[in-house]
């Protein structure tokens, strides 16, 4: 019988004979693992470096400037920040309840197992559809579905600012709904994972006190999973904020701040996709690079927050 060795010893076991292939392999691995780290650092550095002249030129006022006017070379980022965050928030309003419902349906035993797997599979496939295909579908199918509903709301509730502009099809709401569909798989998958690790004994304990299935879900399971679900939602929000193609095709592409969700708007990724290539003047390019930095920073904050929350949950499990 071989002497049992502990995990630790086995992993740190140094070869007495230095093995060349072994050493070469180790260097390759070390080198490769540095690549993605280097890319991320280089990315942060280049983007900040390129945006610096624009930051110096526009200052903090860029963030609150309401006017984005290329012919006059006046650049304020607020309409774009508004369009990005606005469409992102609208997407959460739709994606969170539906995503949670999918997560609960696929993690609790309300349905037979094969049906649960089928639902989970379908939702996962949704994540595979390329963004530009979603854009095409949104432009030709979703807009014709949403337009009559928007028109009805506009006619009935014209006085509410939210519905105050004449809907044209493209706009903040349409972009938000399309984004909701695109981030649904993320919300559903992360929530499902979190719900699945809620220990069964908590469910049993609650049922043994006479609560029904949904009382157990609302009072014990969801509170326990709460921070993990928020983490998943933030992860999805990060995706939504950076989403480019589909939004570009349905948001209306107008630098505009309107209280109405029917009004056309513009998001940072969309304006980059549409105008980055044709920007001529240095000041225009600078303003766009400043936008890249803002987008990079917003998604960074959202993602770091999401990772932190998910980590917190994992640590809580131990």
């Amino acid at each position, binding site marked *: 019988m071989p002497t049992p060795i502990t995990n630790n010893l086995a992993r740190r076991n140094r070869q007495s004979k230095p093995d060349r292939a072994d050493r070469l392999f180790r260097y390759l691995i070390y080198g490769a693992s540095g690549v993605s780290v280097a890319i991320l650092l280089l990315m942060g550095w280049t983007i900040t470096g390129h945006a610096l002249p624009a930051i110096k030129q526009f200052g903090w006022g860029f963030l609150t400037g309401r006017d984005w006017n290329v012919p006059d070379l006046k650049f304020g980022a607020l309409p774009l920040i508004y369009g990005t965050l606005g469409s992102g928030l609208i997407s959460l309003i739709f994606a969170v309840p539906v995503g949670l419902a999918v997560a609960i349906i696929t993690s609790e035993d309300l349905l037979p197992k094969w049906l649960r797997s089928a639902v989970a599979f379908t939702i996962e496939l949704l994540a595979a559809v390329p963004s530009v295909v979603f854009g095409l579908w949104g432009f030709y199918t979703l807009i014709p579905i949403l337009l009559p509903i928007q028109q009805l709301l506009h006619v009935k509730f014209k006085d509410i600012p939210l519905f105050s502009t004449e809907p044209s099809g493209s706009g903040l709401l349409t972009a938000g709904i399309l984004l909701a569909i695109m981030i649904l798989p993320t919300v559903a998958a992360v929530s499902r994972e979190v719900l699945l690790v809620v220990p069964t004994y908590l469910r049993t304990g609650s049922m043994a006190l006479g609560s*029904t299935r949904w009382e157990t879900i609302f009072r014990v399971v969801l509170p326990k999973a709460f921070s993990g679900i928020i983490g998943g939602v933030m992860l999805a929000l990060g995706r939504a904020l950076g989403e480019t193609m589909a939004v570009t095709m349905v948001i209306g592409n107008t630098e505009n701040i309107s209280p109405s969700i029917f009004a056309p708007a513009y998001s940072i990724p969309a304006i980059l996709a549409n105008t980055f290539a044709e920007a001529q003047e240095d000041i225009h390019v600078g303003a766009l690079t400043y936008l890249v930095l803002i987008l990079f920073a917003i998604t960074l904050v959202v993602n770091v927050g999401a990772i932190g929350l998910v980590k917190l949950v994992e640590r809580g499990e131990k």
Partner: protein
Amino acid sequence: MNNSETTKLITPLSPLRSLFDRGMTVLALILTIIGMSPLISVLWNIISKGLPGLTATMFSKPIIDEGFANAVVGTLTMITIASLLSIPIGIATGIYLAEYAPDRKINRTVKFLNTILTGVPSIVVGIFTYDVIVLTSKKLFDFSYSALAGGIALAILMLPIIALTTEEVLKLVPNNLRLASSGLGGSRFQTIARVILPTALPALVTGVLLAISRGIGETAPLLFTALFAQDWADNLLSPTASLPILIFNLYNDPDPVKNQLVWTASFFLLSIVLLINISARLFSSRAR
């Protein structure tokens, strides 16, 4: 307290509670069906508009001659470049995270940065690649937009995905296999190459295929790197068409021929992506 006067067991649940319980089940089911309906609509829409217009010329002629053959070749070229770059480096990073990382702090940092990289918007990756590759090649050599730059942009997107899935997959390999191999005198390299990677191979293939299917459909990273071309690309260093950019550039085109090209290209793109995606999943479930 303990009188044998027990409440009748056959008393129905109070109407409010039973309504809540049933109502929530129904509501959750309705929401789930609503959640699944877009996929069905997308599939139906793309198939019904894209499939009937499919012609053989589309696969032999470039866009300028009312086909999309150059876009298909462009997409394949760029995903190949991206795969050649990202798969070895990604798997190596995954091996580092799972097997080598000298201490937990470095491991956590590398993993954290990779996770952050997966969250960087693809348009930002595109602009970054434009800055670093396209502008540099314009300055130093005499080419700018190219399939090479497009492939690199896609590789940056795929790299962290492959790295993180590789790590996850390798962590599932039971530790006693490592012990057994090194107990027989195998070096770290031999253990990884002969025991761990073969054991993890099916799951690894799944992870890589999923990353590829993600890369094929990406549009934003190619906008300012590969750009677009109506005709065949001269070589890897010239502007190159791709299916996603074709769809984006022509989706609004009034010409019905171009419009049909967009739908059929979408049908073809979606088929490839879903095919790779589904076979990847089947592959891993079969392996298990």
